[in-house]
């Protein structure tokens, strides 16, 4: 409902709601309580429209066809389109136009030139005031354009208006707005309207209005001195500079990139949608919020939810060899990579794991403690080992511990924890709050298959 001024653009919101404004007398908005406001109209968009009792600025569609049953009491204007100042001739916004905030500065040269001065005088003052504040659809028709480019159905309608209303009702029902395709009203586009103007060159360097740039709404309305961009059909924002080709190109490329990203995302969702966890057998995307995360094993392609595969890898009653293995194929993986979506291909998976490691490598290792502690993983740790001044530190390979396993054999054991339990924290996609510090186990490269079942608890 872009044409509707929001109530709180006119009145103090605090006073309106509870008759108490923290700014008191100094408030820059007029203080009016709800009941003081003369008329509140609820419009279809459920937005307030406030003001003196008056006629809506939209033209009654039924009047145009000559069959409005409300006559003088109609909330809409009973005026022919040619009698109105052009700013008022906003075409019905609920038409096929997909832009929710299609607004355009009415202060463009073509419009002002076409303004019919005599007609303007016929409009009363209060309306004139509203015109200034009004936002107009970019599908607006100006009288000049209209005369030149009138399409036939519209002419028919005008003809129908001229005929006596009563006789008209019976045979004109087929032309009711419900039946007539909306694009009948479709005028020339804004760009087309402007192209005939000679001031293009000058405008090429003009800046776009940053309000429209940001969220499609310019508060300054008719007085805005900046250019209001054209709608980009991809992002549906009024962001295309009408004259700056470079900017348009750049923006289109950005949009294309964004579009590709979105496509990728939708593909990811599509391929993740049906995937079920091999442990709990539930469809992962249908699990409770916060549980809908995949645990990707780097060395095999079996699908698990993050919580299940982590729980399995914490199952202390089994040997490490068993729990580090995929529950389905028993291929061992050294860590689990959390992911919002399932990855099918090797490239996607490699990228995911690389991103994951990269994300971890920016976080300070909580064992290294910026040089104060000692990380049991050594340089195999995924986390950042750096001193407070930012200097990185190579802590060397993880310390090895010699410990007799059998009477005749000494086995080197790498003193490493399972990454799985450490990367839980500090990640936007990970919400588990549990402290996993004591969940410590051993971890070796896949080649080193010797495992010991003793534990070390780090402090």
């Amino acid at each position, binding site marked *: 409902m872009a044409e509707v001024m929001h109530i709180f653009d006119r009145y103090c919101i605090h006073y309106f709601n509870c008759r108490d404004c923290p700014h008191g007398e100094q408030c820059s908005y007029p203080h009016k309580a709800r009941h003081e406001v003369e008329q509140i109209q609820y419009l279809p968009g459920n937005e307030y429209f406030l003001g003196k009792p008056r006629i809506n600025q939209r033209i009654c569609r039924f009047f145009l066809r000559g069959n409005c049953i409300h006559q003088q009491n109609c909330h809409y204007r009973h005026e022919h389109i040619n009698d109105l100042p052009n700013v008022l001739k906003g075409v019905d916004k609920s038409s096929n136009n997909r832009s929710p905030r299609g607004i355009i500065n009415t202060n463009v040269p073509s419009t002002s030139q076409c303004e019919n001065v005599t007609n303007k005088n016929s409009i009363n003052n209060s309306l004139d005031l509203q015109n200034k504040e009004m936002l107009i659809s970019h599908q607006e028709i100006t009288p000049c354009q209209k005369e030149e480019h009138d399409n036939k159905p519209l002419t028919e309608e005008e003809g129908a208006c001229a005929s006596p209303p009563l006789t008209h009702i019976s045979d004109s029902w087929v032309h009711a707005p419900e039946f007539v395709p909306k694009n009948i009203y479709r005028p020339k586009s804004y760009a087309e309207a402007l192209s005939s103007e000679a001031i293009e060159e000058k405008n090429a360097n003009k800046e776009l209005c940053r309000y429209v740039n940001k969220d499609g709404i310019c508060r300054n309305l008719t007085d805005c001195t900046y250019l209001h961009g054209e709608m980009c059909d991809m992002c549906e924002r009024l962001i295309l500079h009408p004259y700056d080709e470079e900017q348009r190109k750049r923006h289109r490329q950005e949009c294309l990139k964004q579009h590709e990203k979105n496509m990728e995302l939708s593909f990811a969702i599509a391929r993740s949608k049906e995937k079920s966890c091999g442990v709990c057998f539930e469809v992962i995307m249908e699990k409770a919020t916060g549980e809908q995360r995949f645990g990707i094993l780097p060395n095999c392609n079996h699908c698990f939810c993050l919580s299940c595969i982590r729980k399995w890898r914490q199952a202390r*009653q089994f040997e490490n060899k068993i729990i580090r293995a995929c*529950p389905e194929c028993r291929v061992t993986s050294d860590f689990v990579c959390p992911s919002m979506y399932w990855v099918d291909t090797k490239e996607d998976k490699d990228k995911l794991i690389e991103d994951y490691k990269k994300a971890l490598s920016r976080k300070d290792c909580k064992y290294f403690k910026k040089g104060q502690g000692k990380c049991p993983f050594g340089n195999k740790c995924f986390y950042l080992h750096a001193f407070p001044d930012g200097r990185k530190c190579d802590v060397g390979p993880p310390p090895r511990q010699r410990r007799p396993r059998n009477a005749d054999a000494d086995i080197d054991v790498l003193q490493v924890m399972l990454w799985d339990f450490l990367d839980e924290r500090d990640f936007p996609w990970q919400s588990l709050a549990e402290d996993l510090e004591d969940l410590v186990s051993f971890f070796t490269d896949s080649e080193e298959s010797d495992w010991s079942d003793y534990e070390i608890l780090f402090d």
Partner: protein
Amino acid sequence: MANIAAQRIKREFKEVIKSEEVAKCAIKVELLNDSYTELKGEIAGPPDTPYEGGNFVLEIRVPETYPFNPPKVRFITKIWHPNISSVTGAICLDILKDQWAAAMTLRTVLLSLQALLSAAEPDDPQDAVVARQYKENLEMFKLTAKHWTNAYAGGPFVNTDCDEKIKRLIDMGIEEHQARVALSSYNWDLERATEQLFS
């Protein structure tokens, strides 16, 4: 019971019902209570084994920590097998112990047990007596296993010699199962079995 265990058993239950093994009457699962903690399994004796034609009933108990821990399974039907206790029905199978994997299901467990029946592991025995017989006198083991299948699992193979020997021990006042165990343990040597029973 933890929600995940019950949820999973429910899903698995459906899976087993639909599986082709059920269609071939090879495996079967029945619920014993509403909480999905106790189930009854049934497996058919695999063909070309002494257990062919028999139907073996299993007790399945699902722990709260399932599927992160294996279900506890034992044979209710008496069976003569090196890896299954002839007394308690306890099973020695790695996947039901330390080699369990969370992705395993009731169906895979039952199929594994069926595979165990066709491929015994006498070197990792549950029942030492049976395992010894299996290793020392395979023919005698097969005969005994067939007889047990006939006596307890409804197998078709009838050995009149065995039945007669058992009947003679029953006549001496020995309970049937006890007599069968004694005879089976002594390679159906009536004298030694009697000696053992009355010593």
